[in-house]
């Protein structure tokens, strides 16, 4: 038997011991001779009041100062008061020094207008500790439509509020971090540019900056996901490549929904940046109708798991295979980067553009 059932099966002897609380229908009927419960309603009322974990009370609007005339066991458990301390009092006895007057005002207004209202307010238990009470309040009428009671249900939402506050804090932190990171990348960019101008190496500075900024864009997308540990690579790919897609019709992203470790984001990000920079200089993006399709898939099992990124240029200028296929600082960066992360890249020069397939391991023992 649960406590509730024991409580319910006990005969009405509540007044003998103030700690015992009698929420039986008999007791309610004794004190409220006008109220009628019969048949299913009686069973429902008895069992529901005793079993529900929802703290419930009824207040009588036909008596001065709207006193509580009934409160169930959950109400006693929630507030820590004995029944004798509850019945006869106005609900405001649960309020305390930190209770916001605004929800109290709303309640008062709802009572005046016989409206239903839900408010959250800080209430106090018998021992002085406080809890956040999500209070639902509404009128109950008899069969003649006469106002009989106000019904109040209260639910301790302290945990919910704490979780909400924590989530809010985490979101604020992520925003602040995002802001500072963008600012930092901006400052780095400024340093590189200014140094480049001073030293008369502006195009080199620009090249450095393009890489720094591609990385910045890739990292930016990881912030929202940081708590999850793994990053949705699609967002990072979109962030890196979209600035190259002038007019938004030269880039087609085909992949969908793969999560990769944080480290893979920077490798893939920088590889894509180099491919994009190259396409802008020599490849498909030198043409008005040039197109690049990028796809990403997860391949292999366990230790063999890789993310496979396919870069396919179309409608580009007729390709002449570079004599030094691995040449160019961009290509060298790609090859070295991928070597560090145990990845690899295959390049094929088709008639109308480069097709490159890069593979980066994403296996992580867990």
């Amino acid at each position, binding site marked *: 038997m649960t406590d509730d059932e024991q409580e319910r099966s006990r005969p009405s002897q509540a007044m003998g011991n103030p700690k015992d609380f009698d929420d039986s229908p008999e007791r309610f009927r004794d004190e409220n001779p006008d109220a009628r419960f019969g048949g299913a309603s009686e069973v429902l009322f008895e069992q529901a009041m005793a079993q529900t974990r929802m703290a419930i009370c009824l207040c009588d609007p036909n008596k001065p100062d709207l006193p509580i005339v009934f409160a169930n066991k959950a109400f006693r458990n929630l507030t820590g008061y004995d029944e004798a301390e509850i019945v006869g009092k106005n609900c405001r006895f649960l309020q305390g020094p930190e209770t916001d007057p605004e929800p109290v005002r709303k309640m008062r207004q709802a009572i005046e207008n016989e409206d239903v209202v839900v408010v959250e307010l800080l209430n106090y238990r018998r021992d002085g500790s406080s809890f956040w009470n999500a209070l639902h309040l509404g009128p109950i009428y008899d069969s003649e439509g006469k106002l009989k009671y106000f019904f109040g249900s209260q639910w301790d939402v302290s945990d919910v509020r704490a979780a909400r506050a924590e989530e809010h804090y985490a979101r604020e932190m992520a925003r602040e971090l*995002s802001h500072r990171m963008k*600012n930092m990348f*901006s400052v780095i960019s400024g340093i590189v*540019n*200014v140094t480049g*101008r001073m030293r008369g190496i502006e195009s080199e500075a620009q090249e450095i*900056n393009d890489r720094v900024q591609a990385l910045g864009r890739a990292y930016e997308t990881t912030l929202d996901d940081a708590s999850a540990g793994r990053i949705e690579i699609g967002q990072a790919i979109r962030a890196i490549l979209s600035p190259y897609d002038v007019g938004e019709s030269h880039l087609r992203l085909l992949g969908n929904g793969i999560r990769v470790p944080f480290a893979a984001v920077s490798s893939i990000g920088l590889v894509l940046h180099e491919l994009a920079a190259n396409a802008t200089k020599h490849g498909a993006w030198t043409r008005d109708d040039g197109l690049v399709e990028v796809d990403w898939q997860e391949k292999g099992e366990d230790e063999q798991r890789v993310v496979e990124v396919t870069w396919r240029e179309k409608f580009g200028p007729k390709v002449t295979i570079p004599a030094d296929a691995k040449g160019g600082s961009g290509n060298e960066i790609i090859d070295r980067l991928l070597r560090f992360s145990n990845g690899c890249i295959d390049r094929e020069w088709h008639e109308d553009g480069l097709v490159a397939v890069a593979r980066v391991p994403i296996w992580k023992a867990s």
Partner: protein
Amino acid sequence: MCDSEGSCHVLLLEDEPMILMDLEFAAEACGCNALCATSVKQAMKHLDSERPVRVGILDVNLGEGQTCEPVARELERRGIPYILHSGDLDRQNETVRSLNAQLIPKPANANHVISTAMECVGRKCG
């Protein structure tokens, strides 16, 4: 709107000195005269000087809770176009939204920022 020497004055408001310097260089490379400010007060001073500002480039968040809004409002009042240059697209959302101006998210290439501002006043850059 350009003064007798024919140079075009650009108001740059940015609290980060390196970014400001980068923008200043880019503006100069574009043949403009940069009026640099790191605070609302300085920017207002430039606006009250003799030199006619043709266009403004405003960082939204200027630190310690200060935003570019007063400067933006003043530019609006005078009918001078401006663009916003900000890394903080979320937190300052309400400020940004209330200002009817093009926004370039940071980090952005300084030349790109300047040439975008120049397009606002129908000038070509570089």
